[in-house]
């Protein structure tokens, strides 16, 4: 077990190195000269030369990469071409908002998804089941930026119940909660749909298994049968889906932040892509990818803890 964890962490280190190399190289192979972005439209050729010299842009790419890597290890992700702000600082100020959004959406997704899935499985083929599976199918297909727009139209414009956008108040205040509701539903719907589908099929599979039949035959009552015996084993594949989904949820924050004008990592990244502000793009992409692979590793480790049948050795 510990051997597995150590090995996986080692693999993770190489993967992170690979990611950083890929991100760095793709920004470097991008057409366009960073010096012109920094210098602005009025920079003369000697200005550009001076910028290149100062930033070390004329050195070999690999040297620049190792330089960048060394910086990362010391928490230095470079400086924004546009504002000259430290990338680390820009990320740190925006990061909590994105985490807040991602966690709230995951909570919405897990709650709705698992409850809908369990009810569907228990009342298979009833109208509740049909409604919930249909919603699950539509939920995966709905563009979340559009759903967000519609929710704003209904709850903010028409009924004026919830704010149009922004996540500015702390989440534990009433205002903060109100601000979180629409973005969390917008981002959580697709994941809720996937989790509901997975919970339903997994529960049905376990309910039909031999050991549940035996438990039933031995007189275990319905409630403990569902909540203790079935759910425990049915949750393992659901956990996989939640883990995999966390990635698309992180990707989704980028879009949702744009819809609700939330100043998180996603908006920072989109603005940077449009302005070709490569240090910011590098920093944000690296951060999101790193969180993604680390979360995947944690999910893998949790599997082995909850299901001793799974072994990575």
């Amino acid at each position, binding site marked *: 077990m510990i051997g597995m964890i150590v090995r996986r962490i080692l693999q993770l280190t190489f*993967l992170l190195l*690979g*990611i950083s190399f*890929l*991100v760095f190289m*793709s*920004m470097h*192979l*991008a*057409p366009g000269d960073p010096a012109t972005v920094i210098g602005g439209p009025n920079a003369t050729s000697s200005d550009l030369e001076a910028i290149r010299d100062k930033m070390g842009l004329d050195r070999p790419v690999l040297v620049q990469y190792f330089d960048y890597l060394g910086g990362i290890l010391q928490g230095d992700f470079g400086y924004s071409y546009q504002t000259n702000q430290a990338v680390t600082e820009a990320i740190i100020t925006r990061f909590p908002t994105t985490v807040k959004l991602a966690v709230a959406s995951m909570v919405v997704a897990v709650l709705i998804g698992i409850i809908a899935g369990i009810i569907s499985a228990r009342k298979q083929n009833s109208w509740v089941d049909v409604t919930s599976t249909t919603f699950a*199918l*539509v939920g*995966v*297909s*709905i*563009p*979340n*930026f*559009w759903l967000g*727009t*519609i929710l*704003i*139209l209904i709850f903010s*414009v028409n009924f004026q119940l919830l704010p149009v956008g922004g996540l500015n108040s702390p989440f534990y205040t009433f205002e903060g909660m109100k601000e979180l509701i629409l973005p969390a539903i917008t981002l959580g719907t697709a994941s809720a749909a996937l989790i509901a589908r997975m919970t339903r099929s997994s529960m049905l599979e376990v309910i039909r298994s031999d050991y549940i039949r035996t438990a039933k035959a031995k007189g275990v009552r319905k409630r403990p049968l569902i909540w203790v015996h079935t759910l425990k084993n049915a949750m393992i594949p659901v956990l*996989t*889906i939640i883990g*995999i989904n*966390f*990635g*698309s*949820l*992180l*990707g*989704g924050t*980028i*879009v949702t932040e*744009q819809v609700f004008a939330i100043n998180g990592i996603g908006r920072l*990244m*989109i603005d*940077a*892509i*449009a302005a*070709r502000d*490569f240090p910011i*793009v590098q920093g944000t*992409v690296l951060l*999101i*990818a790193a969180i*993604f*692979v680390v979360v995947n590793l944690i999910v893998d480790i949790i599997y082995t803890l909850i299901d001793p049948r799974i072994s990575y050795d």
Partner: protein
Amino acid sequence: MSAVTETEKNINTEKKTTNRFVEVAKSLMKNKLSLIGIIIITLIVLVAIFSPIITSYGPYEQNLERTKLGVGSEGHFLGTDNYGRDMWSRIAHGAIISLLVGLSSVGIGLFGGIILGLLAGYYRKLDSIIMRFVDLLFAFPGILLAMLIIAMLGTSLVNVVIAISIWSIPGCARIVRGSVLSIKNQEYIQAMKTVGASDLRILLKHVLPNCTAPLIVYGTMRMATAILSTSALSYLGLGAQPPTAEWGAMIAAGQDFMWDAPHISIIPGIAIMLTVFAFNVVGDGLRDALDPNMDVNN
């Protein structure tokens, strides 16, 4: 040469001769949701093909005297947008864009994925290099890889196609590699090798056909993702740019008029949802019909 074709003949006669296609089609038709999906896709394809005939206005034709007309207006049954452009013409034109972007990006992605998957599965030496690269692409969640590529190439619809193609490669490569590994050591492949068939012949004529079922399912599901992502990227301003009649870009442009003309944003959203829904349910149906145990979550 003759030994090779002879062996192939023997192998082929041993294969089931029942027509798989008819079986799959039957099972798809029995599944109500898939049937609905097929009907929706057919309608969208027809709308795309016949859009010049079934629309009375050009998608970019402005009429500043008739702006923001609501749904059901005279001469514009889906209304007009803030420039007086006919919404139905723009939706129909958007169908062409969505289908073309979806087909081309999934097609290119599958092509790349098949080549990488075949090489990785068949040649042990290449396996670890190719699969580490695939793992690396998998390390980018959801749409992020596409965004990184667009950040590198610049914002345009063509770059969206390139980005989504590359994003489709790792999933496809994994499926193909898995199939290759599972049949590589079977007797008939060994038999082909013994009679001197070239690697290319074995790969294309005997290994690849075995991957078709999971690839069809993957491709269909990918169409849904590709269309959804294209609209999301265009919505963010990273894909199609206004005034292009692309559904995602149309939603973004309509957002400024949510107060007085919400249909400008609502209608393209419904179009995206229907299309993505249709490809998703047909993909589900195909999976049930072709290979119930397949995992296409990747």
